């Protein structure tokens, strides 16, 4: 008797098609809404998530702790800082700035995409929260594939929005499926607009599957840095205060976000001595953070990589290099004060190198290999409006840096910060020049 091959219907693919069908229906209602009737509920939603007393905020903490493996203390602190300025008012201002006139920009009519597919990534809720909302703000319903380690944020957003405005909540559908599920991936990526975050490989693979006529907005590999003026570290109390701020940047989200500093550059003629001072202060600060915000779950291979890097530093010192190493007894935190700006492997999870460089030209040379992959820089000790700061910021901007902030605030970008140097909503917008004077200037 032969064994027949049975092709079972793919339940997930069917659910995804059903979700697409529901969004097609919801799109009509969305198109008929005034902008204010989208922005207001989404603003209320942000206020709910910002409010530490709200059940939505608590659910976000609980879910992130469970799925992403961060400690509760880290998640609470990260959300408090990250959502501090993500208010209803900030949202309204952002939309107003990008679209001063409802449904028009510069006389051209905004024509929403019928549907926008959003691929989320990472384990940090804030970017996934914003990415899930963005299509609605340009009038397009959102079909969302959640990240493996943050399946909760878009679901919570959908429920919260439905609670505030059921019709608007119906403009979001969350459809989890493995990336290897081609029966789902094809239909998922068939939307007229696709937004994706993830590794460069993921972005390339997604782009490869899209037709040229589809709008694709990809956010690939990024990392951030801290840059410190060596002169600022002459006194211990300054060094301690700076270290306290930097430790927040490093410890929050266990250094795993694109806004986490991968390393610190200390710039100036006395950079080597200044680096030693910063090492001591930062060790104390990271030890404190380890108590205040314990590090979350760490894969075994990362623990092994941290130990390897520590042992390698020890060996390099034995070989005659004048570097310094301070670390916790376990792998909770590690700081290596290097002797040059040369880039070295970074296991993250609160592992940081301090690189002394003689001046800002040396800094820009050291950072050059990362050009195009840089996001934010925490800048410390450079007088605002000084020519030196201006020159440094311009140099970093040419290498792709799109945000500069004081230390301690790397993990607190404004709602409308130019992610990858782009406006937040404009990349998802589509325009029509109808030639109709009514729609003209």
């Amino acid at each position, binding site marked *: 008797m032969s064994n027949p091959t049975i092709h079972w219907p793919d339940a997930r693919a069917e659910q995804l098609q059903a979700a697409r069908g529901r969004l097609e229906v919801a799109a009509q209602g969305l198109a008929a809404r005034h902008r204010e009737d989208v922005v207001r509920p989404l603003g209320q939603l942000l206020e709910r998530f910002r409010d530490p007393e709200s059940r939505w905020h608590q659910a976000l903490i609980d879910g992130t702790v469970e799925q992403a493996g961060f400690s509760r203390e880290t998640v609470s602190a990260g959300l408090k800082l990250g959502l501090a300025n993500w208010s209803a008012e900030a949202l309204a201002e952002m939309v107003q700035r990008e679209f001063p006139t409802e449904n028009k920009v510069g006389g051209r009519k905004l024509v929403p995409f019928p549907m926008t597919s959003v691929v989320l*990534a*990472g*384990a*940090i809720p804030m*970017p996934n929260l914003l990415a899930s909302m963005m299509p609605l703000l340009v009038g397009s319903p959102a079909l969302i594939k959640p*990240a*493996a*380690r943050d399946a909760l944020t878009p679901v919570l957003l959908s429920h919260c929005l439905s609670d505030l405005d059921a019709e608007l909540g119906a403009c979001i559908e969350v459809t989890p499926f493995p990336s290897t599920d081609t029966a789902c991936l094809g239909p998922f990526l068939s939307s007229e607009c696709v937004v994706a*975050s*993830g*590794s*460069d*490989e*993921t972005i390339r693979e997604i782009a490869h599957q899209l037709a040229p006529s589809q709008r694709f907005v990809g*956010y*690939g*590999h*990024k*990392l951030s840095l801290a840059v410190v003026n060596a002169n600022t570290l002459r006194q211990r109390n300054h060094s301690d205060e700076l270290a306290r701020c930097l430790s927040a940047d490093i410890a929050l989200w266990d250094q*795993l*976000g*694109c*806004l*986490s500093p*991968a*390393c610190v550059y200390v710039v100036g003629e006395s950079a080597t001595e200044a680096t030693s001072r910063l090492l001591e202060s930062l060790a104390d600060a990271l030890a404190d953070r380890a108590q205040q915000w314990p590090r979350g779950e760490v*894969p*075994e*291979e*990362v*623990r*092994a*990589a*941290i*130990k*390897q*890097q520590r*042992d*390698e530093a*020890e*060996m*390099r*010192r*034995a*070989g*005659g290099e004048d570097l310094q190493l301070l670390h916790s007894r*376990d*792998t909770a935190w590690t700081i290596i004060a290097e002797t040059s700006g040369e*880039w*070295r*492997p*970074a*296991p*993250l999870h609160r592992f940081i190198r301090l690189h002394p460089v003689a001046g800002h030209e040396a800094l820009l040379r050291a950072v050059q*290999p*990362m050009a195009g*992959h840089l996001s934010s820089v925490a800048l410390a000790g450079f007088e605002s409006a000084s020519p030196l700061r201006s020159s440094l910021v311009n140099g970093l901007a040419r290498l792709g840096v799109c945000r500069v902030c004081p230390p301690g605030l790397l993990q607190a970008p404004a709602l409308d910060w130019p992610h990858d140097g782009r406006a937040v909503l404009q990349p998802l917008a589509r325009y029509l020049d109808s030639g109709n004077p009514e729609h003209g200037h």
Partner: protein
Amino acid sequence: MATRNSDRAELDHSILTWINETPWTQDEERFDILARQLFAHQFARCAPYARFAQGRGLTPESIESWHEIPAVPAAAFKEMALRSFPESETKKTFRTSGTSGQKRGELHLDTLSLYEASLLASLRTLLLADLEPRRTMIRVLAPSAEEAPDSSLSHMFSVLLKDFGSPESGFDVTDGTLQDAALIERLQASSSSNEPLVLCGTAFAFVHLLDHLGERKLRLACPPGSRIMETGGFKGRSREVSRDVLHAELARCFGIKPSLVINQYGMTELGSQFYDSRLVDPSGSNRKCVPPWVRVRLVDPESSLEVEPGETGMVTIYDLANTGSVAAVQTADLGRWISGGTGGFEVLGRRSGEEERGCSIAADEMLSRDEPY
């Protein structure tokens, strides 16, 4: 010719004697004595290693067993020359793979005798035992030692062919390109023979060959008793394939028994290698066999202590064949004992963890991807 230090000569002789003994016999006391003598020798002659050990409060006089010998991280071989002999006596230097501009690890040797004895002993015992004394057709999916003079793998394969290969043996990678068409033709021609053959090479070369066979919808039928030995990883090369899937595909596409597809775990920084146990113990759990002159510890990265049976730890290797360098090497690989002590271990694969980090990435991964293959 410079005369090597007599202590070293005596040590080499003792270790070489053990390497050449058959059958393999585990001897804990013998290993401990030789390992501590070797540590004392390397401590006295490799200054960075001595400082490294002293930094941890360890000296040849202070340790009580080989377990306490400090292991250098494998990455240290990229940072400095770890030699226990004068630089002028360097006979051979093997380098880890990498593109120009990248730092490459180096193993410096003042003699190849232990290196070659170790590799031959392991190959003989764990891959070729049932094929001796006849010479076998061995095809290698890697460049020859002439084409890749600083590759320890190519050197190993060259020695293998010299000692075990029939006249039909050879290398199937020339000028950096796998000559897959010619190899397939040769394998097809040999399918009617009763003489087993050996295919060995890098995992990524085998993946390319499998892709080539797949495109042409070809399957081969190697003679009974034929076997495959593959080694190495995939980073930055071909698409990644799990070891289990690779072995199943190799068995299927080459008509070879699954128990005759063997993985080798080794590295440039070491003089010895570890092979799957399948051939010598087909009914037991597959594990990496540890030669008698080598010891493996699995170390917890948090505490640096040895892990309990069944737990995962960093693979740390004590290789007596590394007399000219540093014998104790800590890898960044994770492993688990299959049957404790010297019974055997498995090396665990690594998760990339990329998507978990969203758009951020460990910068070293980013930089290595930006470099050409």
